[in-house]
């Protein structure tokens, strides 16, 4: 994936990259091997909103070889309060393109796919299958279940972030042999009436930024082999004391319709035939956006 400039048989990454990424290559447990892993890796970031705008620049800066940006929204002025890759000039243009432009300024060698078609149960598997890892940076419940189910079928880790108001949450799903999927932890979706979005409930910019940054940390840890693979959830509230709390999560649920090892083949979830909006209790205007 990495651009071929100056690569010779004697160096696994281009000579100039030893300088550019030296500050992380000297880290214990990362090293040259970590950099090679990042350069070879492809990461799908679904959602170029508050979370995506915070994780994407750090993935490009760190030298991830290929990044897919998935978002079918258009940049609006109300996004600029927290979505720092977009700017006043890109208001009115597709978010995926706006984010791509910003990343290219940072790292011209990163291969960036900007996909502005919506991810659906029909196309999720084919859109995501060519990436090594998926970041859930979305803002709605149906897409969260869809991404989790797709990650299970494709056997890829899902680095999931969420933020609202002064609160944030972070988890890695479907990691390793026994890591739970989103559905293992939340078998039943909340009613639409109990769900809010950033647009309805508001959110502080650097709160969603912090969670997005932490998604980039987890992604780099997984790609470079530094992740301990224990299933946990990190909970953040900017006004609480202490602001962070870590929770130990259960392992894979045997009877999980998505990832369970102990369920009837005909009860196993079939993404193509699942209506995620209906499963989550019907559509609301904001989810559809």
């Amino acid at each position: 994936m990495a651009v071929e400039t100056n690569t010779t048989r004697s160096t696994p990454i281009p000579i100039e990259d030893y300088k550019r990424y030296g500050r992380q290559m000297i880290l214990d447990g990362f090293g040259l091997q970590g950099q090679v892993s990042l350069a070879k890796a492809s990461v799908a970031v679904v959602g170029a909103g508050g979370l995506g705008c915070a994780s994407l620049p750090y993935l490009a800066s760190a030298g991830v070889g290929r990044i897919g940006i998935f978002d079918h929204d258009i940049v609006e002025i109300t996004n600029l309060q927290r979505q720092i890759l977009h700017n006043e000039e890109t208001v009115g243009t597709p978010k995926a393109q706006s984010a791509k432009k910003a990343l290219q300024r940072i790292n011209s060698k990163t291969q960036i796919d900007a996909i502005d078609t919506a991810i659906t149960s029909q196309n999720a598997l084919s859109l995501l299958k060519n990436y090594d890892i998926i970041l859930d940076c979305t803002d709605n419940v149906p897409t969260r279940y869809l991404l989790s189910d797709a990650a299970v079928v494709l056997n890829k880790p899902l680095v999931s972030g969420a933020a609202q108001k002064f609160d944030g949450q972070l988890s890695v799903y479907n990691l390793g042999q026994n890591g739970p999927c989103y559905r293992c932890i939340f078998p039943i979706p909340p009613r639409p009436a109990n769900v809010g979005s950033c647009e309805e409930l508001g959110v502080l910019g650097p709160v969603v930024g912090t969670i997005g940054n932490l998604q980039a940390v987890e992604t780099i840890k997984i790609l470079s082999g530094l992740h301990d693979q224990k299933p946990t959830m990190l909970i953040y509230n900017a006004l609480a004391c202490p602001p962070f709390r870590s929770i130990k999560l259960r392992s894979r649920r045997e009877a999980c319709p998505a990832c369970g090892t102990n369920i009837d083949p005909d009860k196993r979830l079939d993404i193509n035939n699942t209506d995620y909006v209906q499963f989550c209790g019907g559509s609301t205007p904001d989810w559809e956006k």
Partner: protein
Amino acid sequence: MASQTPPNISLKIEFSGGLELLFSNQRSHKISIPSEVPKDNNTRLSPPDGSTKPADISYLVYYLRDHLLQERGELFEEDGTVRPGILVLVNDTDWELEGEGDYVLKDGDEIVFISTLHGG
């Protein structure tokens, strides 16, 4: 070592992810509940007059709904347990690892109720 069951146990209760709005907009609460409670989770009878069980999280959910909740109980409790989308933690561990509603509460336990977030 035979010790007499104390009549009450103290618990630290935390709400987060927006649930605190239902509970006086206060994230942290200290409560005291009976250590033996009615099997049918009736929280109004004291002392219980029917058969009893050690206080568990199922009872706690009813207790919080009946005694601490300020409004809109359906945003917290549903069909005898927490509504979908709420994660329950026993001393920082997912309650599924601890027996869910059947977990018998101990004096000093910290129980956290977290509403999952979906924004991004």
